[in-house]
């Protein structure tokens, strides 16, 4: 992935796309169904800059365990996508931060909040543990709802940026 502040694009959310920092990634078109093109992100370990990347098997093993279809996503096919085509997609940096906060930070904060509340009320350690777990479950539920809301608003949807040129590669992996 790489971040880009300017690119040739239209308008989104009332603001020109060029003013929004985007996190770029590579994807490959795997299916075209009328107005929708389905793409799969290219799988690159973010530790690509590590000197031992060629001998490190952790990321490779992980990718074998996780099916690629799980991360397939739709794109509006207004660019005449062809199956097998390599494209560059972008996601707003703000969306990435919102998604991280929702998926990771919220359940932890509700877990800690519920635990501290139970302890402040003089609960035993067993009850504190149960309260924390309940808080964690509540946080996950809220995160699930929040993600649905963000997805409905189109906040998490990747945007087609351009067709990938021949030798273009993920710079972040080699920086």
């Amino acid at each position, binding site marked *: *992935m*790489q*971040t880009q502040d300017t690119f040739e694009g239209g308008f989104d959310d009332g603001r020109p796309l060029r003013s929004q920092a985007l*996190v770029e990634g590579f994807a490959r078109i795997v299916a075209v169904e009328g107005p929708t093109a389905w793409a799969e*992100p290219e*799988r*690159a*370990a*973010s*530790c690509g*800059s*590590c000197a031992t990347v060629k001998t490190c098997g*952790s*990321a490779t*093993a*992980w*990718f074998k365990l*996780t099916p690629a279809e*799980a*991360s397939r*996503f739709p794109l509006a096919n207004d660019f005449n996508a062809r199956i097998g085509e390599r494209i560059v997609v972008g*996601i707003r*940096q703000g*969306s*990435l*931060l919102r*998604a*991280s*906060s*929702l*998926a*990771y*930070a919220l*359940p*932890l904060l509700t*877990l*800690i909040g519920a*635990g*501290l509340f139970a*302890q*402040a009320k003089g609960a035993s*350690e067993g009850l*504190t*543990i149960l309260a*924390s777990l309940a808080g964690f479950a509540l946080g*996950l539920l809220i*995160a*699930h709802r929040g*993600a*649905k809301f*963000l*997805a409905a608003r189109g906040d*998490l*949807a*990747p945007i087609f940026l351009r067709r990938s040129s021949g030798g273009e590669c993920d710079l*972040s992996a080699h*920086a």
Partner: protein
Amino acid sequence: MVTQYLMLIVGAALVNNVILARFLGLCSFMGVTTRVDTAVGMGMATTFVITVSSIIDWLIDTYLLMPYNLTYLRTFVFILVIAAAVQFTEAVVRKVSPTMFQLLGIYLPLITTNCAVLGVALLVVVEKQTFMQCVVFSFASSLGYSLVMAIFAGLRERIALAEVPRLFAGPPIGFITASLLALAFMGFSGMQTN
């Protein structure tokens, strides 16, 4: 109680920072900090995994390993728990939102082999903390990890734009910057010792 937890947070996040004071998680510290967005994504995913796995490890250690005198299995069990916690995190993110999984899932493989996760889990049980101390300590430690990752990524982004002598370009200037950052964090040791 509030003061006790505040001291615990400051101690874990700043004074005894996982990366700059305990020297854990250095692989991801050097490998994923070339851009701020990847560093923040990795930091948040690691925060989640460190906290969740430390809690599970504490529960297993307190209610299973200690009562049955199986503490010699600690490291082995903790590694298994971490791998399971990473799988759990993947399942959670995928359940919360498949699009989010596509955005955030790339950092998960790195966390399985991040020694900071095992380090914090072991510190929690060695220091014989209570459940809430374990929760707050592991959360604060991982916040300290994320903070340093974000700061260092910001510095490296600026360095990438600077004219660095050829001899120091790349990892050497990165290590020099890291050492200066570690010196800066040593200033916090005057605040509290843990």
